[in-house]
C-alpha cells in the first residue's frame, strides 16, 4: 500500500490493523478486495430506513471493535446523517465522503451527482438491493398484503409518480444476468425507462487499500463525525 503524497502520517495507518463494519449491500462489493487478515462485520440493510437506529447499531459495533483495531473502515456513506455523531475511543474511523451507497457502487460522488443531474427521478437497483428485497416489487407486495391490490396499486403509483428511470447498477458481480432480468421486469411493470449503468470498484478499492484521499473522512480516535466533515473540502 502506498500513501498519497503529503499524507505521510497515514503510512502507519495503512499497515495498521483494520476491521470493517459494513452494510449488507456494501459488503458484497468490498469482499473481493479485502485482504484475508481484515475481519468484517455486517449490519442489516433495513437499518437505513431508521437513521437513529442505524447510528445506535453502528456505535455499538464501533465500541465493541475499537479496542481491537487501529482503523475501523465503515462501509457506509452519510446515510441520512446516520454516521454523524459516531466516535471511536481508540481506533481511527475511515468513511467514504458520500451521501449514500449509490456513490460507493458508482465509484465516486462525482459519478453519482452526474447520474442524479441527468435524471433526478431515478430508482437505483443493484444486486445487493434486489437480494435484500428493497425493490418496488417487494414494497408493492407488502402493500397488497396490508391494503389489497387496488389500493396498493394506487399507493405504488403515488410513490413512484416522480420516477422516470430505473437504473440497474452493474457492479460486475456474479449471476448478474439474473438480477438484470429482474431489474428489467421491474422497470416494465412500473412503467419506468430501463437503463444499465456501469458500476466501479474505485471507491471500495481505495477504502480497503488506500490512499484515503479527499474522498474519505479519517476521524481521529476520540473525535466525533460531523456533517461539516462531509462537506468541507479537505
Amino acid at each position: 500500500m502506498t500513501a498519497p503524497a503529503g499524507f505521510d502520517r497515514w503510512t502507519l495507518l495503512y499497515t495498521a490493523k483494520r476491521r470493517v463494519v459494513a452494510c449488507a449491500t456494501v459488503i458484497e462489493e468490498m469482499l473481493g478486495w479485502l485482504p484475508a487478515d481484515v475481519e468484517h462485520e455486517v449490519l442489516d440493510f433495513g437499518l437505513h430506513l431508521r437513521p437513529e437506529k442505524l447510528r445506535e447499531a453502528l456505535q455499538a459495533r464501533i465500541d465493541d471493535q475499537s479496542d481491537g483495531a487501529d482503523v475501523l473502515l465503515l462501509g457506509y456513506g452519510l446515510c441520512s446523517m446516520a454516521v454523524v455523531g459516531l466516535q471511536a475511543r481508540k481506533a481511527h474511523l475511515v468513511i467514504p465522503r458520500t451521501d449514500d451507497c449509490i456513490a460507493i457502487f458508482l465509484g465516486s460522488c462525482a459519478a453519482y451527482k452526474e447520474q442524479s443531474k441527468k435524471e433526478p427521478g431515478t430508482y437505483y437497483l443493484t444486486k445487493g438491493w434486489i437480494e435484500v428485497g428493497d425493490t418496488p416489487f417487494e414494497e408493492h407486495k407488502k402493500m397488497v398484503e396490508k391494503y389489497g391490490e387496488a389500493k396498493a396499486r394506487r399507493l405504488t403509483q403515488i410513490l413512484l409518480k416522480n420516477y422516470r428511470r430505473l437504473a440497474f447498477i452493474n457492479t460486475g458481480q456474479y449471476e448478474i444476468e439474473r438480477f438484470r432480468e429482474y431489474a428489467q421486469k421491474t422497470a416494465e411493470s412500473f412503467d419506468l425507462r430501463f437503463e444499465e449503468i456501469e458500476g466501479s470498484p474505485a471507491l471500495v478499492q481505495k477504502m480497503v487499500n488506500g490512499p484515503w484521499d479527499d474522498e474519505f473522512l479519517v476521524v481521529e480516535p476520540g473525535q466525533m463525525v460531523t456533517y461539516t466533515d462531509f462537506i468541507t473540502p479537505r
Partner: protein
Amino acid sequence: MSQELIDAITDMREEDAVAITKKLLDGGASPVAVLDACREAMGIIGMRFETGESFMPELILAGEILAQISAVVKPRMQQGGEDKKLGKIVLGTVQGDIHDIAKDIVGFMLDINGFEVTDLGVDVAPEKFVETVKSTGAKIVGLSGFLTLAFDPMKHTVEALKAAGLTDVKVMIGGGQIDENIRQYTGADAYGKDAMAAVAIAKSWA
C-alpha cells in the same frame, strides 16, 4: 372535535373518513372543527412515522385521505364568506430531489391553516423559486428535500433569493434529516420536523 373522524383517519379507513366528514358537516359541524380533527389526526400519524410504527404507504394514504376531506370541506368554507388568508407561501422540493409526499402534506396543512400556497412541485431550480416569489409577492418560502443531496440546492436557493434582493423573504426548510446544523449550512431562517412545525413557523412569520 370528532374522535370518530380522528380514528378513521389514523386507522387509514379512507371511505369511512370521507363519509364521517360528510355526516358531520350535514349535522351542522363547522368546517373548522373538521379541519381541527384533521390536524389532530396528522399529529398522531406524524408521531407514528417518527417512531417507526408507520411507514411511507401510511403517509401517502393519510395524504390522500386529507385531500379527499379537503375536497368536501372547502366548498362549504367558501359558503361562509371569503376567509382572509394569513399570507402567501411558495413551496417546492429543491433541485435534484423528487420526493414530495411529505411536502404535499405540508402544503395541505399550510392551506387549511389559512395560507395561500403556490406549490412548484419537485426538482425546482433556484431561479424558479426567485421568479415565483417575485410574481406572487410571497414573503415565505418553504424548501423541501429528502436526500442529503438536497442540502446544497437548498443553500443555493437561499443564496439566489438574497442575490435577487428578496431579503425580506423568510425561508423554512424541512424533510429527511434536517436539523439546526443543516439550517445554518443552508442559511435558511428556520427548519421544521413535520407539517405541524411548518404551520407554526409560518404563523410566527405571518
